[in-house]
């Protein structure tokens, strides 16, 4: 018989945190995909639709109908999505059967990031070699300047998604510095394809907004409409061409509606900015808000209407002057435990 000399009553606990985030096996993901497809067909059957042509949007609508939820956060509501969207993409095991890793920089720890640096540096050396060859042959170096204003580099989060690896701020800034160095060389056009993978186009603000063309009423006078809001006030303005500078608000003259000079100055600001004070007539309707809010709303509406009368450059000037931006400031709510939105109750020492 064996006699135990010493026994440990406490079993050694597994260090749960050390193994890293839960790894999903391929078989598990495959099973989830099968279950999802089966569930999709059942759902289509339940809703009375054709299982073959049941798209993701139909699924979302069906789930929203069957499981109505009043929760504010969209991510917290019940959803049915394809497993590849639900389970984040993971790194599978990096070495083969004999134990040899697949990637030659595996032992660094951050293999994708360092291999990216390696490749970029190789392109850099290539460009330098090409440059040397051109200089040796006394050929002129190409000087087509890249459009710097219209593009930006990938952000750190986008790069992390691309590499499937966590990066530190230092690593990211080093990579961007290397890219900048590469782009600064005169013959960098050779590696244009490679550089484009890491740059994104920034569309100029104006291109998104469509400026409506002028409309003409019965007498042939050009006019255009605009809508504006400020706090709780909503306004619509119709600006007519060939006018004398008359402004009508809600059927009454501007002097009667806005007795305060400040409000009338706000109304005139867009016209004064463009230098068209006596040239336009305006008819507007406004509701909600208070005195200043209504004035601000009409100002925004008239500026939007004036865009159709004016060149693109002047529209850009107006945008930079802040005439076309909606003022986002609203009354902040009162919080419990405080007297107002920011003011706290008087503090009493005892």
């Amino acid at each position, binding site marked *: 018989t064996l006699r135990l000399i010493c026994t440990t009553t406490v079993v050694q606990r597994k260090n749960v945190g050390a193994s*890293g985030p839960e790894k999903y096996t391929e078989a598990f993901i495959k099973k989830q995909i099968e279950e999802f497809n089966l569930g999709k067909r059942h759902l289509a059957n339940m809703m009375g639709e054709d299982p073959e042509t049941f798209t993701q949007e139909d699924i979302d609508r069906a789930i929203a109908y069957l499981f109505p939820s009043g929760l504010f956060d969209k991510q917290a509501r019940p959803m049915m999505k394809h497993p590849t969207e639900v389970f984040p993409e993971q790194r599978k*095991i*990096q070495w083969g059967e004999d134990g*040899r890793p697949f990637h*030659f920089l*595996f*032992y660094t*720890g951050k293999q994708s990031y360092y291999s990216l640096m390696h490749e970029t540096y*190789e392109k850099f050396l290539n460009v330098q070699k090409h440059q040397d060859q051109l200089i040796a042959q006394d050929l002129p170096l190409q000087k087509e300047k890249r459009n710097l204003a219209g593009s930006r580099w990938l952000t750190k989060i986008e790069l992390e998604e691309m590499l499937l690896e966590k990066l530190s701020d230092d690593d990211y800034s080093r990579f961007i510095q290397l890219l900048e160095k590469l782009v600064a060389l005169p013959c960098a056009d050779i590696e244009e394809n490679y550089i484009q993978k890491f740059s994104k186009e920034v569309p100029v603000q104006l291109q998104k907004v469509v400026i409506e063309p002028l409309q003409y009423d019965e007498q042939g006078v050009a006019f255009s409409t605009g809508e504006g809001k400020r706090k709780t006030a909503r306004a619509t303005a119709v600006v007519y061409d060939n006018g004398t500078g008359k402004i009508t608000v809600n059927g009454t003259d501007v002097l009667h509606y806005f007795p305060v000079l400040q409000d009338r100055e706000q109304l005139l600001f867009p016209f004064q900015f463009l230098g068209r004070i006596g040239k336009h007539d305006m008819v507007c309707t406004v509701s909600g808000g208070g005195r200043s809010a209504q004035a601000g709303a009409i100002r925004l509406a008239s500026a939007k209407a004036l865009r159709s009368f004016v060149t693109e450059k002047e529209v850009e000037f107006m945008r930079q002057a802040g005439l076309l931006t909606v003022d986002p400031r609203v009354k902040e709510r009162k919080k419990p435990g405080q007297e107002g939105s920011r003011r706290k109750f008087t503090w009493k020492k005892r």
Partner: protein
Amino acid sequence: DDKLLTEPLSHPDFFSVKELFTLKDLFDARVHLGHKKGCRHRFMEPYIFGCHLDQDIIDLDQTMQHLQLALNFTAHVAYRGGIILFVSRKRQFCHLVESTARACGEYAHTRYWQGGLLTNAHIHFGPGVRLPDLLVFPCTLNNVFEPHVAIRDAAKMNIPTVGVVDTNCNPCLITYPIPGNDDSPAAVELYCKLFRMTIIRAKDKRRQSEAVEEL
């Protein structure tokens, strides 16, 4: 299979490593040039031939012997399918060393060495990872002129090391030191070329022997 592994061990120079380099090659690549007398490390004195105008000259005969031993050892490790890791912290040669490793089909680490890569590998990489079987150092010092942490870690984990030691380096913990210059581009290119050729030769010989065995 047993014959494949034991046969190379009976020859002193199975992979004919001596043909890859001559004394003149080493001299032309400026391998004999060391640092100044003030930078000399005490343990490098046996390997130094002399001192000319305050600059140490390394004894190339000893370098030849050490280089032959080291290359023979790497060839045997590569023959047996071992993982070879090239470690260097010189920014000048980082790209060169990485490309050499890629060309051989082996691995490289020329970036910041995180603390527990070898000693805490199962936490870093995941359970079941295989550690390298040989570490090669084209330059043993890191950017602060101190011995690279990987030398000490490899000694802790019983992993043999091959390294080029300059006159200001400590050859103590390295299994196969190669006294020689580690700063000139010509010298480092020569070392990379030699290691690449030995590893490729060893792997080809292994494939040939396996093909012969199958027949």
